[in-house]
C-alpha cells in the first residue's frame, strides 16, 4: 500500500496475494453475513408457547368433542363438555403413559390401551390407572382457548 511499487516478477506475486486475500475476505464475510441475513427472517411459526399454550380456536370444538394439543413436551387434552364448558387435562395416562381421549358418549376420559376411565375432573374412576390426571387451567382470550399450568409463582 504505502510501499514503493516493486518491478519485475514479484509484482505479479503481489497481485496474486492481494487477489487471494481480497477473495478470501470477501468469501469469509459472505459466509458470516449469509447466516445473519437468514437469521433476521422471522420464522413462519411465531410461537413455541410456554407454561401457557393456545390449545385451540373458539368454535373449533363442539360440545362433546375434544382435541389433543402439544403442551411443552407432552400431549394435553382439551375437551368441551356437553354443557359447553372447556376442560383441559394432561393427556398422558397415569397407568402406562398412553394418550387418553375424551368419550362424549360416556362423559368420561378414556384410555384406549387398557380401558382406563377418568372423570372430567381427572380422577381415575375405573380400570388400571393408579393416579388422577393433572388438570390445567383454561381461559378463553379473544378467539383463542388458552391452557396454562396451575401454579402460584
Amino acid at each position, binding site marked *: *500500500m504505502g510501499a514503493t511499487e516493486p518491478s519485475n516478477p514479484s509484482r505479479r506475486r503481489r497481485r496474486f496475494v*492481494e487477489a487471494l486475500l481480497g477473495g478470501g475476505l470477501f468469501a*469469509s464475510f459472505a459466509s*458470516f453475513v449469509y*447466516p445473519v441475513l437468514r*437469521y433476521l427472517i422471522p*420464522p413462519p411459526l411465531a410461537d*413455541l*408457547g*410456554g407454561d401457557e399454550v393456545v390449545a385451540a380456536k373458539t368454535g373449533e370444538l363442539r360440545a362433546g368433542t375434544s382435541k389433543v394439543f402439544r403442551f411443552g413436551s407432552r400431549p394435553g387434552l382439551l375437551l368441551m363438555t356437553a354443557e359447553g364448558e372447556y376442560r383441559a387435562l394432561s393427556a398422558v395416562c397415569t397407568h402406562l403413559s398412553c394418550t387418553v381421549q375424551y368419550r362424549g358418549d360416556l362423559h368420561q376420559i378414556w384410555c384406549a390401551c387398557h380401558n382406563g376411565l377418568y372423570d372430567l375432573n381427572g380422577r381415575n374412576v375405573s380400570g388400571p390407572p393408579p393416579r388422577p390426571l393433572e388438570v390445567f387451567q383454561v381461559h378463553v382470550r379473544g378467539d383463542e382457548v388458552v391452557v396454562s399450568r396451575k401454579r402460584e409463582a
Partner: protein
Amino acid sequence: MRLLARTGEWLGERFHWEELIGPLAKKTVPVHRLTPWYFLGGITLFLFGIQVCTGILLLLYYRPGANEAFESVQYIMTRVQFGWLVRSIHSWAANLMILTAFAHMFSVLFLQAYRKPRELTWISGMALLFLAMGFGFSGYLLPWNTLAFFATKVGTEITGQVPVVGHGMMVFLRGGEDVTTATLTRFFGFHVAVLPGLTVLFILVHLALVQYFGMSLPPGVEARWKTNPGEARAMKFFPNFFLRELMAWYIALGALGALAAIWPWELGTKADPFAPAPAGIRPEWYFMFMFQTLKKIPAKLWFLDGEVAGILVFGAAGGLWLLLPFFDSMAGGRGRRWVLGAGIFGLGYMLAMTVYGYLAK
C-alpha cells in the same frame, strides 16, 4: 484498495484524521521471544465484539420472563434459521472470552507488565475481568433451564452469606427473597444494559492507557536490550502487528464456527422452581474453583462460619489481586518475588481446584 486510499484522501482533506490516528501509526510493538503473549488482549477484545453482535441478534427473539425465556431460546434453537448458530457462538465465545481474559491477566502478571507506570492499566483490566465474569453469571441464567436456575440459586445464596451487607446484596440480585421471574428480569437488565455500558467504558479507558504507555517490555528483555541496544527490535503496530492480530481473530472465528456446528450449546430442561435440585449442579467452569473451595471448607473455621470465612478470603484475595502492582515496588526486590509467588500460587490453586471440582462431582 484504491477506493480505500481515495476515501482516506477525501477524509483527510476534511478532518486531518491522520493527525488523530497519528500516534497509532507511530505505535510499535517490541519483537522478542514473548511477543505472542501480546495478542491475547486483542483476541479478548475481538471476542467481546462477537458477543455484542450475536447478543444483539439474540435480542431479536429472546423474551425474558420465567414463562417464556426457555421457550424463546428453544424457539431460537429450532425455528429461527441459523438461530442455533447464533446462540451457540454466543455461548462458546463467552467461554472463550473468559478464558482469553484470564490468560491475558496471567500473562501480564508473569511478564510483569503491570509495573509502574501501568498500575491503572492493570486495575482497569481487572475491572474488565470482573465485568466479564458478571456477564457470565448473569447470562447463564437467561435460558432459564434447570442447571442455570439452581446454579444461580446457589450463587446468589453465597452472596447472601457475606456479613452485614450480604442479605441486602442477595435481595438486590434476586429482586426478592427467592430466585423468580423477577431475578430473570434483573439479570437480563444487567446482562444487556448495565454490564455492556460499563464494559465499553472500561475498554476505552484500558485501550487509551495501553496506547498512552505503549507496549511493556518484560524486565529481562528490557535489561538485555539496555546493555546491548543492537538487539532491540520492533515492528510497526499498523499494519504489521495488526495483520498478525487479524490472523489470530480469524483462527478464533474458525474455532468458534467449528465448536458451534459440531457441539451446539445444549439447552437442557426448563427450570421448575418446585422441583428438587438435581444432582450435579455446578456453576460455569470459571466459578468452579470458588464453588469447590466453599464446598470443601470446614463448617467452622476458628470463630467464623466456614462458608463466610471462605467468602471473606476470596473477597480479600480479589482485593489484593486488584492492588497487586502496588506491592511490586515495596521492600525492594522482595516485593516483586512476592507478587510472582502469589501469581503462581493463584494460578496453581485455581487450576487444581477446578480439576478437583470436575473430578470429584
